[in-house]
């Protein structure tokens, strides 16, 4: 008998009587837009992201972004920008230093600062991890209260690969001291529009 067959048979013989799945509809959250924005900013800041709030300004995003990148990552920084679709020439991340990865997540979560991007925004999956810094443009209309609402949106299109990113990579593996910048991006910026 194959291992597959024997494992399944053992489970069939050993499993308890069927227990029904619980109701998830008890997890509802009615939160105002202001509240969502405030919580998202607060949590993201705690997660060590830099947050720039442009929600109530008239600033042109394009101009702001160009200026922000030049000021923070250098005039000649290499940018992996996915804002205009994923038709981007392939980069060898092994040999090319990319300063900043830019994307617009489809979902942002107020309770924990998670931002959802999928293969649609990741022509090369490694781009969000192998770039030195990440920068996300978050449309405040995309903020949901908790992971429950986030997954009901994720469900519509799970994609081939999708990731919630909640800030720059970090570790506390040496004596519990928090260090920002482990194996993924060393900084994360959120521009809220």
């Amino acid at each position, binding site marked *: 008998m194959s291992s597959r067959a*024997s494992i*399944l048979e053992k489970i069939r013989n050993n499993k308890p009587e069927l227990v029904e*799945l*619980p109701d998830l509809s008890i*997890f509802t959250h009615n939160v105002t837009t202001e509240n969502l924005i405030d919580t998202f900013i607060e949590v993201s800041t705690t997660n060590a992201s830099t947050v720039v709030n442009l929600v109530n300004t008239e600033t042109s995003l394009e101009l702001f972004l160009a200026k922000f990148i030049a000021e923070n990552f250098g005039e000649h920084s290499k940018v992996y920008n996915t804002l205009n679709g994923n038709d981007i020439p392939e980069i060898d991340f092994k040999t090319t230093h990319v300063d900043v990865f830019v994307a617009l997540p489809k979902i942002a979560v107020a309770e924990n600062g998670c931002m959802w991007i999928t293969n649609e925004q990741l022509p090369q999956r490694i781009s969000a991890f192998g770039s030195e810094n990440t920068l996300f443009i978050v449309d405040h209309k995309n903020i949901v209260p908790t992971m429950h609402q986030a997954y009901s949106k994720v469900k519509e299109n799970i994609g081939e690969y*999708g990731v919630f990113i*909640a800030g720059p990579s970090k570790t506390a593996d040496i004596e*519990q001291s928090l*260090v920002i910048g482990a*194996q993924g991006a060393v900084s994360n910026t959120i521009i809220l529009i």
Partner: protein
Amino acid sequence: MSIHAQKAKDFIANEERTNWHDGALWHVRNKRDISASGVPEWEALRNTASQIKDNVLSNLDTYLIQFEAAAKANGVHIHWAANGNEHNAIIGDIIDKHNARKIVKSKSMLTEECGLNHFLEDNGIEIIDTDLGERIIQMRNEPPSHIVLPAIHIKKEEVGELFHAQLGTEKGNADPTYLTKAARTHLQNKFFEADIAITGVNFAIAETGGVVICTNEGNADMGCHAAPVHIHCMGMEKILPKLEHLGVFTRLLARSATGQPSTIYTSHYHKPESSKEMHIVIVDNGRSEQLAKEDFRNSLKCIRCGACMNTCPIYRRSGGHSYHATIPGPIGAILQPNRDLKAYSDLPFASTLCGSCSDVCPVKINIHEQLYKWRQEIYKNNELPKSKVTSLKIATKVFKSPSTYDFLGKFARASMKALPRFMMYNKFNDWGKHRELPQPPKQSFKEWYKNKNNE
């Protein structure tokens, strides 16, 4: 002396380190409390998570078949391993097929359980753990001492020396930021050199055939996206029915583990990137037997958050290695006896049965009750340590006879007052080690009650 007691003794020999370890883990436990209390529906989440896992365990075969079909439709290769050896052999075959020589691996307690690293190293394959804590202990040739904080037993000065010797960092520099950067550079090279990346799995979704991996460092994703082949190894109990159930578990996991509202990366792998290959190995290794045991099957609900370790007064003061098992702490103490009752008969006794583990467990495993039940199993199977059998026999006699009990009580109270220190604080009295015994009361409860009624 049991293995746990002996190893705990070695650990606490360094009092300063013990106190640091105790305090550091209590700090993590505290962060968990603050985080959990910020979620008003926390208890509802725990109940729901526990019920979802009940459903999963009661329908596991169907979910696994559904998962397999969905994953195969996504172009993912599925393998089944009855035990650790088969798991290692499957990975060995994939490595052979690709002529791979260099492997990177992100944190996976399952591959630890199966002894994958040793197996590959014995076959001349380089395997590099890419989680910083795991890399540190790998360089030291040690197993992890905690499932979420694998290097919690090591001081930064020791990491500094280790990195100086193996990565060429400055001598005497023990700054965590400096050392983390050095590890980052070292690991970036390893990611791009690797032929295959291996990861563990936090959750697998029956409905969609995908696996979910949670990290803070981004090392699992760096590995998988840089290498042409990625393999995900999962215990078969990791299944969740649908995507929406992730909403419950992602809210619980990081908050319980470190007090963070979420891990930094929660990655969902459904299909390989074009021209790449994705494999999933589904592992039993004793889980189907655990499923049959009504009293113990709940331990299969564990999501490996580590909260029961951080809160455990024994774990915090005896260190993860004292459990001489892949999974230490309270959950390890109920998982390991299932694998080998004789070898791990000491672990269910490494507990005060205070129940704090069950209180913090996000999936509501009745850990302390299972510890108590394992003690009974161990007694029934004659695996109780001799010292315990003798003292329990004496205790049974004493408790059976009220007059002996009264007499010994009086005798103990009198002698605790009268005996010189060296008679009480010596190597024969474990209760007098590292602590002051309480002042004996003047009278017993019975005497006090009698007097009170006579007044």
